[in-house]
């Protein structure tokens, strides 16, 4: 026979275990929903990259590719010295954004394989190159 105390404890343990597993499940679900994978321009062009999913793309801004469109829209091309991908962005670019310099953009790929960025990050260093691009340059050469 279970005493009252035992029953109480059993109930407590079950609620705790249930609560914790539910919380962990929810946390992991939120986690998997918010992972933004990094792709190089080569991967964007040559392989299947999921469209309409938030990803990051990084590379060097091609010199002379920067264009202003109306209403604070800009367009520029990013390269990993193998393939190029055009990036569209509306808004004010960071102070450190320059042609010929490395950047990382967060956004989505549309159906024409153009990258529509919601955020553009540039680094403090003019010699900066996203580490992923450095790595892919190394593996190719």
């Amino acid at each position, binding site marked *: 026979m279970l005493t009252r105390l035992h029953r109480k404890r059993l109930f407590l343990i079950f609620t705790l275990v249930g609560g914790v597993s539910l919380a962990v499940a929810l946390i992991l679900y939120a986690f998997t929903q*918010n992972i933004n*994978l*990094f792709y190089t321009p080569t991967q964007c062009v040559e392989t299947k990259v999921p469209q309409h999913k938030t990803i990051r793309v990084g590379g060097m801004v091609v010199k002379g590719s920067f264009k*202003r469109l109306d209403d*604070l829209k800009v367009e520029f091309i990013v390269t990993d010295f193998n393939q190029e991908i055009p990036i569209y962005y509306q808004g004010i*670019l960071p102070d450190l954004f320059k042609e010929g310099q490395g950047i990382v953009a967060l956004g989505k790929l549309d159906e024409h394989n153009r990258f529509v960025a919601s955020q553009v990050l540039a*680094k*403090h*260093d003019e010699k900066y190159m996203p580490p992923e691009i450095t790595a892919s340059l190394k593996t190719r050469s």
Partner: protein
Amino acid sequence: MIPEFGLFALIMALLLSMTTVILPILTRSSISEASQIKINASVVLGQACFILLSFVTLVFCFVQDDFSVRYVAQNANTYLPFMYKLTAIWGAHEGSLLLWSFILALWMVAVLFVAKAIPGKVKMTVLTILSCIQTGLLMIILKTSNPFIRILPFFPQDGADLNPLLQDPAFIMHPPFLYLGYVGFAVPFAFALAECLLKKMDYPWASWARPFALSALGFLTIGITLGSWWAYYELGWGGWWFWDPVENASLMPWIVGVALIHMLWVSAKEDLFRTWRLSLAIFTFILSLMGTFLVRSGILSSVHAFSSSPERGIAILGFLSIVVVISLGLLSHLRGEQKQAFVLSPWSKASTILLGNVLLIAATLSILLGTLYPIISQLIWQKSLSVGPPYFNTVLLPMLFMILILMSVAVHLKWQQAPDFLKVRKYSVSLLLACVTVLMLINLTSLSFVAALAFTLALYLIISTLMFIHKPQKIGMIVAHIGIAIFVMGIVFVSSWQIEKEFAMQLGQTVEVEGFNFTFNQLQEIKGSNFEGTRGTFTIYKDNQLITQLFPEKRFFIAREQAMTETAIHSHLMRDFYVALGEPLDNGAWSVRFYIKPFIRFIWLGGMMVALAAFFAAIRSRCIKEKRVASYEIDRFA
């Protein structure tokens, strides 16, 4: 000669702190305990003096523009304003570590002098443990990050200048406060290890460690608040928190630190949850060390992007793993009976604090997952990814809500027993009222359900806490908890009602935003000592009434060839107007950011209240502690 003098002082400090560690082992039997304690104290003082000397020497090198010192050449410039020359020391890696070590020395001196009531043996053990940490750190500095390295014989004529982002008044104070907090948690950590080593179960360990933990938490709170404020106006995007790995690295020790001070309070009253409390003290310091490691190793790709060599990262990581292994080893060897004479009701104050602790740890672990997973994935699967801010928001919001409810309820509960039925009925009535408030807020204002709920819970917390206003001994808790509520309200209002607009504006053009007429009046050239740039003049009118005139700038720092946005903010407790120049467009226009941020000051006001409360509680608990320790000594010798 002068830089070598600084290096010499640093080496002396290392030797002395090694002495503190080795001496008690060597002289175990030959010297009496009383003289051991005396020697320990003087060696600690000597070590602190040498670190101070080394620190002052580095300051002197900066003031003198001694560009033969590599660190000075990399982080200063002849034209750098004097104030920033003084603070450029913590602008990069080497100096930051030196600051870390200097602050550790300060905390050791504090343990030596402030904690008069603590028995000499305990104090010596604590100082020896802190000296071990100091020794490790000084070794890292001398081996991998010596700030006094010279570039001879051909040194540069001028320096590379301090990173312009760091040339800012808030930044002068941000790293010292942050490190005072990080390093301050070394003291409760050392007390925890001393407790494991000395195994004196009847000592009031928790009340000894509490004032140190509280003041460390206060400093860390100020550090984080300053950092958030600085990011808001200096980075130029008007955000106050980005879930950036470096920010997370400072938030995690803060959260566990909050859990720790509550647990220390419980333990100071009643000898409960000992292992849990010790683990918290150890965990907090390990997270603080990890924060330093994450920021200083350059392993993270973040907006803070401090570049660094892998050698340094490995050195700090090695140090971190030694600390983890030793402290967890000591903890697992702790055996002692804990009195468990009573049964805790799950509806008592002690158990709700434990539950709150569990929630805080869960929050920390989820932040840890989001912060470390990109690194792990990079190392193991060579897959580069980042975790988006929505993850942190969705996961932490429910936890925050539960914690707010616990904070409102726990203060009214009895210490160990369940509350009586009448009180439970009162709670139910007030909760019902809260639900009605949420529904009303959603209907009457533009707040979303989540925002209305958060606001109501914060309001509920304020009312529930203010019921104790007549009890002066609870003033620390009252101020801190209301601070949290105000912070939450700030977040609710900013995220619900902020307006962020970006325009392409011609000179003389006016745009209307929510009834405010925002005009671009003027543009002029400016020149500073180490930069040149452009200053815009903007006016904001409402109903033909001038509200304010703002002067945002775009600066170009000559030595670093780097552009910087200087925002202009008209701040008011209720509302901030935020203007930043973007970039010149092709047709003579400029892109301009115009933001209205209602109640954003509440966020930092809340932070400052928490910090103040922590300091207040630290001073108070010290007074009480001395009384109690006195009576405890009497008990023991009676």
